[in-house]
C-alpha cells in the first residue's frame, strides 16, 4: 500500500467517525424536534386533546381510587388487630359479687393487659340501647343475659389469642370464651376480594386507555397519510415515521395521568370531611388516603407508558397498510 493510499484510508476512517457522531447528534435533534412538534400539535387542537386526556383520566381514576382505598384498608386492618378482644361469658349462676372476683382472677393472668366487667344488668342496658328494643325486653321478668368480662390480651396475634382463650375457659366461673376475630377474618377476605377486583379493573381500564390512545393516534395517522407516504418514498424508516405518533401517545398518557391525579386529589378533598365524621361516629380515627409522591409517580409513569404503548400498537397496525403510490 502506498503512502498516498494509507493517508486516504485514514482520512476515510476519520470522516466515517465524524459522520457517525454527527448522525447521532442529528438523531437526538430529531427526537427533540418530534417531542416538541407533537406537543404543539396537541395544543393546536386543545378541545380534542383535552377530551382524549379526560377520557384517559376517567379510565384511570376508578382503579386508582380503589387501589388507594384498599391500601388504607390494610392500615385499618393493622389497627383493628391491635384492638382485638376476647369476651368471657360467666356461668349464669354466678352472682354479682362472684363476678367481681372472677374479673380479678382474669386480670391477674400474665397474658392479660386489661379487663372490663359487664354485669348482667349493664349487659342488658347496652343490649337494649343498641337495638332500641326497650319495650319488648323490659317486659321480660328475668334477665336472660349472663355477666361477661371483656379481656384485652397483651399479645394480639391470632395464635396467642386462641391459646389465651383456652386458658381463660379453664378459670372457674367462666362458661364460654368468644373470640371477636371472626369478623376481622371476614374483613380480610373482603380485602382480598377487593384486591382481585382492583387488579381486574386495572387491567380492563388499562386496556381502555390503550384503546382510547390507539383510536386517537389512528385518526392522526390517517390525517397525515400523505406525509407518511412522501417520507416513505424518500427513505424514511418505520422508526422515523412512528416517532411523532409515539410522542403524541406519550403526551396523551401524561396529560391523562395529570388529570387523573387532579381528579383524585379534588375528589379526596371533597370526601374527606364526611368520611372523617362517619369514622368518628364509630369511634375510629380514619382519614381518606391521599396520593403520596410515590403513588403520584407510579400513576404518571404508568399512564405515560400506556399512552406510548397504545400509540405503538395503532401506528404499527397502520404503517403496514400505508404503501406509497
Amino acid at each position, binding site marked *: 500500500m502506498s503512502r498516498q493510499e494509507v493517508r486516504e484510508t485514514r482520512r476515510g476512517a476519520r470522516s466515517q467517525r465524524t459522520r457517525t457522531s454527527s*448522525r*447521532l447528534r442529528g438523531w437526538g435533534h*430529531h427526537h427533540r424536534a418530534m417531542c416538541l412538534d407533537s406537543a404543539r400539535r396537541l395544543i393546536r387542537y386543545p378541545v380534542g386533546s383535552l377530551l382524549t386526556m379526560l377520557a384517559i383520566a376517567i379510565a384511570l381514576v376508578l382503579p386508582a381510587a380503589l387501589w388507594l382505598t384498599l391500601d388504607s384498608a390494610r392500615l385499618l386492618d393493622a389497627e383493628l388487630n391491635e384492638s382485638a378482644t376476647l369476651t368471657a361469658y360467666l356461668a349464669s349462676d354466678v352472682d354479682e359479687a362472684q363476678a367481681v372476683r372472677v374479673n380479678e382472677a382474669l386480670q391477674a393472668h400474665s397474658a392479660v393487659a386489661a379487663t372490663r366487667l359487664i354485669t348482667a344488668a349493664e349487659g342488658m342496658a347496652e343490649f337494649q340501647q343498641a337495638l332500641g328494643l326497650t319495650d319488648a325486653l323490659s317486659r321480660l321478668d328475668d334477665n336472660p343475659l349472663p355477666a361477661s368480662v371483656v379481656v384485652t390480651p397483651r399479645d394480639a396475634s391470632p395464635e396467642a389469642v386462641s391459646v389465651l382463650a383456652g386458658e381463660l375457659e379453664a378459670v372457674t366461673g367462666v362458661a364460654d370464651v368468644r373470640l371477636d376475630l371472626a369478623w376481622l377474618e371476614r374483613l380480610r377476605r373482603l380485602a382480598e376480594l377487593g384486591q382481585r377486583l382492583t387488579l381486574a379493573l386495572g387491567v380492563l381500564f388499562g386496556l381502555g386507555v390503550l384503546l382510547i390512545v390507539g383510536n386517537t393516534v389512528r385518526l392522526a395517522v390517517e390525517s397525515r397519510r400523505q406525509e407518511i407516504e412522501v*417520507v*416513505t*418514498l424518500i*427513505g*424514511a424508516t418505520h422508526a422515523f415515521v412512528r416517532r411523532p405518533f409515539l410522542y403524541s401517545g406519550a403526551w396523551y398518557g401524561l396529560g391523562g395521568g395529570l388529570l387523573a391525579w387532579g381528579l383524585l386529589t379534588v375528589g379526596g378533598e371533597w370526601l374527606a370531611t364526611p368520611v372523617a365524621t362517619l369514622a368518628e361516629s364509630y369511634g375510629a380515627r380514619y382519614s381518606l388516603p391521599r396520593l403520596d409522591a410515590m403513588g403520584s409517580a407510579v400513576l404518571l409513569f404508568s399512564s405515560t407508558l400506556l399512552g406510548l404503548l397504545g400509540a405503538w400498537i395503532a401506528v404499527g397496525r397502520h404503517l403496514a397498510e400505508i404503501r406509497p403510490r
Partner: protein
Amino acid sequence: MIAFEHVGKRYGGRFEALANIDFRVRRGEMVFLTGHSGAGKSSLLRLIMRLERPSRGRVLVAGHDIGRLHASQVPFYRRQIGVVFQDHQLLFDRTIYANVALPLEIQGVEPREAARRVRAALDKVGLLHREKALPIELSGGEQQRVGIARAVVNKPALLLADEPTGNLDPQLSADIMQLFEDFNRIGTTVMVASHDLALIARLRHRVLRLREGRLVADEEAA
C-alpha cells in the same frame, strides 16, 4: 449503474405491464424513457425505486439485486437515489425550506449542515429567495423545481424523474431539462421518463422507447 435482466412485471398476477425488459445504463449516463400512456414508464421507474418488485428477471442497481433487498434495507437504499415525481409529492403544510430539508431530516443530518446543503440545492434551482414560502404560493414550474431541489439535496449518484415537465409550458420544460443536464454533467446518472418527444429529440441523449410493456427501441445518443 442500472441493469435490467429479462424483467417482467405483472399486476394482480394477470395483467402484464412490462415484459422481457433488458438494458443497461452506465454510470454518468443520461437516458430518456419514452412511450405512449400506459406503456410502462412509471412501472419501470417504480421497479428501480423498489416500490415494486419484478415478477420475473432481476433489477440491479450499482451491482445489487434490489429485488432481494430486505424490507428493513429498503429505506437506506432509497436514500441513495433522488426522485422527482410528476405530482411533486411536496408537503403542503411545510415551507419550501422544510420540504427540501426532508431527506436530510430523515437521514439525521445535523441542522447546521442541513441548512448549508438545503440552501445550495435551492440556489441551484433558483429558488433561494422563496425558502420561507409555502408550496401553495408557488407556480407549477416552481413547485417542480422544489421537487428537484429535494431530489438532489442529498447529492445522489442516481436521479430519476417521472414526467417532470408533465404540464409545463415549453420554455419551463426546457429549463427543467437543462437542470437535469447540469446534474448529469457533474457525474450524476439521470433517467427521465417523458412523452415530450420534441424536447427529447432536441436534447440528443440516449432514448429507451417502450410500447405496451416491451422495449422496442434503444437509440444511443446522437
